[in-house]
């Protein structure tokens, strides 16, 4: 049980992006954050724009996911998504620029449909910014939960 690990696979149109072991995964699904530990029951869920945290011992990696679906089965976590970005792949300057632009656009009154797409784009920019900046949550409090 102790040495059991999850196998994470992230598949994008550009091929298998990630294939690695992990102790714990936390991702943003449509209903809120979902944490996955080894021996999780079989689960499928849609993913919304958000951060995927890959926790391995004391190390934590972050990735930005934009939409897609996740499937958990037999300790294999398969994420199918259009876009998955590592922190180093994110253009922070562009994300900041996007954020300012959409924040400004959100201030102006426009049709509901436009507002909706702005809010999606703004959220994406925010996710990118958060992923590429330094970890806000320290690794220590996660380790405690791991020891149980």
């Amino acid at each position: 049980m102790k040495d059991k690990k999850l196998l994470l696979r992230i598949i994008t149109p550009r091929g298998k992006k990630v294939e690695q072991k992990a102790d714990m995964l936390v991702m943003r699904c449509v209903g809120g954050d979902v944490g996955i530990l080894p021996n999780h029951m079989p689960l499928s869920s849609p993913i919304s724009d958000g951060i995927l945290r890959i926790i391995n011992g004391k190390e934590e990696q972050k990735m930005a996911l934009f939409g897609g679906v996740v499937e958990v089965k037999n300790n294999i976590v398969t994420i199918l998504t259009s876009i998955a970005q590592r922190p180093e792949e994110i253009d922070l300057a562009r994300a900041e620029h996007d954020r300012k632009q959409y924040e400004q656009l959100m201030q102006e009154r426009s049709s509901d449909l436009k507002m909706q797409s702005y809010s999606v784009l703004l959220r994406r920019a925010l996710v990118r910014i958060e992923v590429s900046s330094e970890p806000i949550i320290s690794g220590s409090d996660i380790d405690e939960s791991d020891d149980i």
Partner: protein
Amino acid sequence: MSSIKGIKQRIANVSTTKQIMKAMDMVSTSKLQKARERLVNARPLFFETKRMVHQLKDCEKAKESIFIKQRKVNKSAYVIITSDKGLCGSYNVNIAQKALRHMNEGKNEVILVVGAKGYEFFRRRGKNILHRIIDITETQMYYDTGLLSEHVQSLYVSGEIDEVFIAYTRFESTLSYLPVVEKVLPISDGEENMRFDSEMTYEPDVHSFLEQAIPLYLHACFFAAMSESVACEHAARMVNMDSASKNATDIIDDLNRMYNRKRQAAITQEINEIVGGANILK
């Protein structure tokens, strides 16, 4: 049959054509390399999404979804993927014929065609072409196929079409391509070899999962089919250009031989004339 000058002109012509074909061959070779790489990367997403949606068939609640449930078929949509440019042998004809044969098995069809060649083919046969897409840039392929899949999905949801087929050319190797017609929607019971035993839970519920999974599945289908087809197109063009430049070499050889024979004949004739003239003077 033709003069020495004429033959010389023809040799020059064929050589120029050969150069063009060689260049096209090289262009296709490098494009094929890129297309193959893209194809290898596009396949996993397609297989995984396919597996995932087929798994949904096991879920009782999902069976009632319009995407899975078989409904009475009035109209079948065909998405046919061809190329914009020619000079790739029988590539376009093969896939168009395959789709045509499939349609003629008593389907009431609407066609969404990708590529100028396929559009011409079906227009000439007076088929019901609903939508056509030409000039898909290869680097923009993922985005463009996304628009296509959204379009198909909205047609399907609105009930204008009751099933969706995709006709594309599957890339097997540089020398072998297989035109195939596959059913995309509704998710048919055809795939019997896929067995699932585990009880899957869907969060928050099956329908919101379907809402996200189906567009991704469609998109992945079209993207993979497009990637396969593009790889085939370049491979076909490469092979055809290669054999065409070989043919050109043969023609040049023949023409050269003919040219030399004519030249020899002319020289012999000239010598004969000189000798004949000299004999008269004796």
